[in-house]
């Protein structure tokens, strides 16, 4: 990673962390922002998929499916951004699925680490339990506006920290060749 890329990555991380913290303090305003972000993300994902079809998937066997998927997602995303009031249950369901899946993977992996005798198992199980707790919180407070924004904010802050850490650590995109 170049120095410029590192700096941009770190700045993105800081902005994400600040956004996460601000959202925690202003849940009412933040909810509509979250819903819009989800709609816009879907629209861009649809566009990205269509681009992927034209640059890569059209050369493969059965690649047309990618085009259909892209068009449908783009259409859905575009439709969602025009609706101002998205039910909280859908947003909460989305958060629940993300955290329960991440938690299950971490817990399974910690079991494997433990069997191997690797010391990383404690950290992995803690991360897994954290994710499970967040997903249970989603279920218990399925219609709570504050919970939606709180959990989404935690996810944002975590993502921001990952960005910052990634830009600080030694890059592995360069490989030293022995001669």
């Amino acid at each position, binding site marked *: 990673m170049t120095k410029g890329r590192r700096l941009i990555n770190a700045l993105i991380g800081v902005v994400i962390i600040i956004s996460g913290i601000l959202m925690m303090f202003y849940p009412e305003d933040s909810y509509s922002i979250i819903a819009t972000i989800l709609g816009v993300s879907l629209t861009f994902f649809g566009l990205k998929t269509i681009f992927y079809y034209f640059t890569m998937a059209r050369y493969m066997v059965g690649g047309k499916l990618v085009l259909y998927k892209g068009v449908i997602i783009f259409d859905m995303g575009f439709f969602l951004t025009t609706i101002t009031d998205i039910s909280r249950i859908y947003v909460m369901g989305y958060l629940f699925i993300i955290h329960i899946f991440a938690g299950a993977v971490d817990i399974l992996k910690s079991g494997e680490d433990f069997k191997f005798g690797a010391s990383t198992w404690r950290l992995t199980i803690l991360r897994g339990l954290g994710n499970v707790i967040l997903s249970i919180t989603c279920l218990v407070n399925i219609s709570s506006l504050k919970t939606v924004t709180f959990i989404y904010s935690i996810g944002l802050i975590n993502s921001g920290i990952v960005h910052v850490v990634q830009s600080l650590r030694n890059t592995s995109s*360069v490989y*030293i060749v*022995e001669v």
Partner: protein
Amino acid sequence: MNGDFHYYATYCAAYLAGYSHKECMDICYSAQLVDHCSRTFLSKISGPSDAVTTQLQLEMADARIDFLGLLDITRIWSSFHFLPYDLYANPPKGTKSYKNKFRMICGPNGDLLADTVNLAKGKSLQAVGIAMHVLADTWAHRYFAGTPSYVINNTNYYFYEILSIPEGDVEKQITFRHSTSAPDNLEKSIYTNSLSQMSENSVMNLGHGRAGHLPDYSFIRYKYLPAWGDYDVIIKDNPSDYYHAFAQMIYAMKYLNGTIDIFKKDKYAFDELIKYEEEIKMILTKRQLDSSKDWKAFGEKLSGEEIESFDLGKHEIEYSLAPKHGKDYSFLGKFFAASQAHKSMVTDRIYKSGNSLAGFSIEKIIRGVIND
């Protein structure tokens, strides 16, 4: 390929190439260790994380698929399990990014194979074992790439097993399921594969995941439509490929132990196998999920020595107790040096071909690789 071939068959090939029983054990142990040297294993013994040669299933589930994560995955899998056949291949159509993925497709007798064998020349027995693992996998894993890619590694419903019966060959459609805990059902041709993910860089689209373990079974013959193949059917004849792999391992190890002077691609030690051809082909075509028992019996008949089972912890204590400056001279230390050297070579070749899927390489004189 599984432990039956990487461990026991490699032992047999090494013995037929002229190595002693003890040397054969070190070579086959190293060949098999390539499938076990994960970051989890390295973290347990405090080994260099750069020496990683594989990723466990749950490490994959947890793997990052951002830019850096993909470089890491590609370096590991393309270096040790899916050696690219032709880094300068020119498919008739496709953008630069498509061509870069296409060029990572694995196959036997590529230039990188010769580089792999030559790199191990004059090095430790661990380096020989690693080279034999890579060589054998070029046959088993051909037509798949060691980088996540939907457009290269995906397969579809057109997948048939070719069964030999007295009346001739018959085709039976293969059913795939996604249950990793259930063993493959040979009777009903039900096999486990990875989930279909229409995402280019999903780890589900790494290597032969979409074709399940079929490439790892020596007995099977099947036909399918590879995603990259422009609707041309590929017939994969594993018994023939595995026999070629075995004969090429003997030839390569004869070069590595100095019996022959030059290593050439597409050369095989078929003459040395005439005596054993029937017996080996019987093992290769026997319809079973694990042929370790048969290869072990064959190896023990060859050398008259007992081949002990693979034990991942066998050399851990030696490595852990060695002083810091002496670790390089331990069994695992030599394995790590050889794996790092091999990964460096492959990464460098990929980068110099104008393909950045494995990252960027910088040449630097580090240290000499320890000889055995």
